[in-house]
């Protein structure tokens, strides 16, 4: 890591003290940014300087910093988790940027994701959707022998792919309609594709979609910006699966 590679960046960062505060973009100049830093380390560096000056550091969510928890939500130059495909903000490195670049950093924006402070948003709307049915509630008995229930490899693969969703909310943030359909369809699919989850598949689809609508997310227009922004490459084929599952459940539901 040679110092000559270090960059000076013009940062435009959304500052908002509370949910009710109006908020605004604030300009910062940050010098000596190494291309080897992660994006979050870059913000850490800025925050250290702010703290040293007795300024309020920039609030942002993060936890694992290894791309698995889904906390590090932010819009970077108008793209969820920044410009790289299938990459969370914590896994994005400053080598994706050039010396002298202007970088705009904003929180996710959606009615269902109110801003708490600066770049932090409240994503508990996702928890409400999971609570509405994103689990298996039937008694499956004691743990059986391995491979006692045979699952086709294809179904297992599709379920695993859907289960890769880390609930980060980038799909909602990048969608022009702030639709949560990619997240919800992944959570429905990961269970519906497996025998234990299939039992409650109808009710699950109905309840989770109902909750999603109630929370004020938008409607899908099949643009696929969600899939393109998803750090886990969740496929919109899950949305099609949810659509047909929901329709089937709505026509054949035994409840009500």
């Amino acid at each position, binding site marked *: 890591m040679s110092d000559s590679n270090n960059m000076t960046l013009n940062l435009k960062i959304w500052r908002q003290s509370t949910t009710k505060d109006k908020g605004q973009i604030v300009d910062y100049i940050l010098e000596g940014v190494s291309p080897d830093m992660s994006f979050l380390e870059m913000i850490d560096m800025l925050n250290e300087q702010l703290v040293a000056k007795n300024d309020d550091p920039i609030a942002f969510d993060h936890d694992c910093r290894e791309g698995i928890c889904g906390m590090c939500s932010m819009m970077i130059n108008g793209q969820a988790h920044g410009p790289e495909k299938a990459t969370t903000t914590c896994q994005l490195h400053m080598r994706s940027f050039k010396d002298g670049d202007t970088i705009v950093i904003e929180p996710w*924006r959606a009615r269902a994701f109110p801003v708490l402070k600066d770049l932090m948003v409240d994503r508990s709307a996702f928890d409400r959707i999971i609570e509405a049915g994103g689990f298996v509630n039937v008694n499956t008995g004691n743990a059986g022998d391995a491979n006692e229930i045979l699952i086709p490899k294809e179904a297992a693969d599709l379920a695993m792919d859907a289960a890769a969703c880390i609930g980060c909310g980038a799909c909602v943030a990048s969608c022009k309609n702030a639709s949560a359909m990619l997240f919800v369809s992944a959570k429905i699919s990961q269970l519906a594709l497996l025998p234990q989850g299939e039992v409650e598949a109808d009710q699950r689809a109905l309840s989770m979609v109902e909750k999603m609508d109630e929370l004020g997310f938008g409607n899908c227009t*099949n643009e696929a910006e969600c899939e393109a922004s998803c750090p886990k490459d969740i496929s919109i*084929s899950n949305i099609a699966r949810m659509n047909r599952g929901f329709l089937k459940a709505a026509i054949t539901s035994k409840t009500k």
Partner: protein
Amino acid sequence: MSSSTQSISHNYFLSSVVKKQIMAVTGLLLCGFLLGHLAGNTLIIISPDAFNQYGHALVSNKPLLYTAEAGLIVLFLVHLTMAAKLTVENNTARPEKYYIKQKTGRGSTFASSTMPYTGMIILIFLVTHLINFKYGTVYMTTINGVEMRDLYKTVMEFFAQPIGAAWYAFAMVAMAIHVSHGFWSAFHSIGIFHNRYTPLLRKAGIAYAILVGAGFASLALYGYIQGVQA
């Protein structure tokens, strides 16, 4: 999640998923109508008499005419109502806009992001279309001893004006853009996804869009050229 503890207050048929499915089905039926309409209209190029006789046959069969008209009105109204409702909901789902927003370049297309606008153009076109042709100037002609409306003359008069032909062609381009996304999108909304066939459906949608767009627009161009020569 047992049914006894779950209170279901919501009407499934007004859920986001089903509203999209209603759009999809009405949109696909309208796509079918466009094909039929285009096939009939190409008679303009074949001969004025053939076109007029076709038109006469359509309006002479009253039960068929009224059923078809009623069906089309319902399709349009339902498609439009759902479009308006979904679009309003989508706009309220993000009350605070981004300072900057950039597409990934890996997802949305021009067609997919302009559906409400191309839809609006189609709607305005539809009104002018009915005013200009169906409720336009009525000329009469006699073919093989049968008196009938000379719709050919009305249409050709309209296309002979540069503004008329240009507006028609412009609206047809907008419609082609609308269906180029709408076609495959409708299948996805209904729940059809296939690793092999979905990419084919996307191509088929574009082919369909070019066919109807270029088909209708070329009729306008044909009429314009005829007018210039006349």
